[in-house]
């Protein structure tokens, strides 16, 4: 892991055009401003991880057919 020491209003740049700036330093937290191209999604890590786990569980249930009966149609048909 790369480690930087930054002061208020200082920033780092990641790759091509992603900038992370320290906007405020509080007692227990800091406020970061992220500037990134539209093609780069930015999320809080814990939110992303949570949604990733839910997606994996949703796909796994479908693969193992768990609880699918109540959603299943009477008969698969060719579309």
């Amino acid at each position, binding site marked *: 892991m790369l480690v930087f020491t930054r002061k208020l209003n200082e920033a780092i740049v990641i790759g091509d055009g992603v900038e992370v700036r320290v906007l405020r330093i509080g007692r227990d937290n800091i406020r970061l401003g992220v500037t990134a191209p539209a093609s780069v999604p930015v999320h809080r890590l814990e939110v992303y991880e949570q*949604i990733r786990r839910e997606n994996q569980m*949703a796909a796994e249930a479908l693969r193992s057919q768990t609880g699918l009966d109540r959603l299943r149609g009477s008969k698969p048909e060719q579309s």
Partner: protein
Amino acid sequence: MTSSQHSTAAASGALSLRTEFGEFEVPSRDIIAFPNGLPGFERSRRFVLLSAGLQAPFQCLQSVEGPGASFVVVDPRWVLDSYRAVLSDMDRFRLGATPDTPLLWLAIVILASDGEAYANLRAPVVVNPETMIGFQIMPPDSLYPLRHPLPRE
């Protein structure tokens, strides 16, 4: 994994797709591009929406390139009448949509080990049918839960 998801490109511009619900011919124009994949399935970039095999209003969002990325999905407004998700300007831009573009909203259904079924209203999938581009959006201030119980008939 039970049956393998499998697809082959045919000369006709159609894909032949083997799914949990049978085999289908899917025209290329029905393929939805997910430029970022979905969280947990970042490499799955092309999906189709299938209605066969499931009871309405449920559909299957199925990856055409695997492995195993397929989801039961449902209109979040069927789950919760009052559902109103906010799309950020950035997400709208990524979808190639204007504020007037009609968008398709889908909530991923979770069949939990407790036998209950839930819909993920926190992070819905949004598709622009005009560009056939889709994203799973994660609004930072959403009031909706990751697991909202499905209505019982």
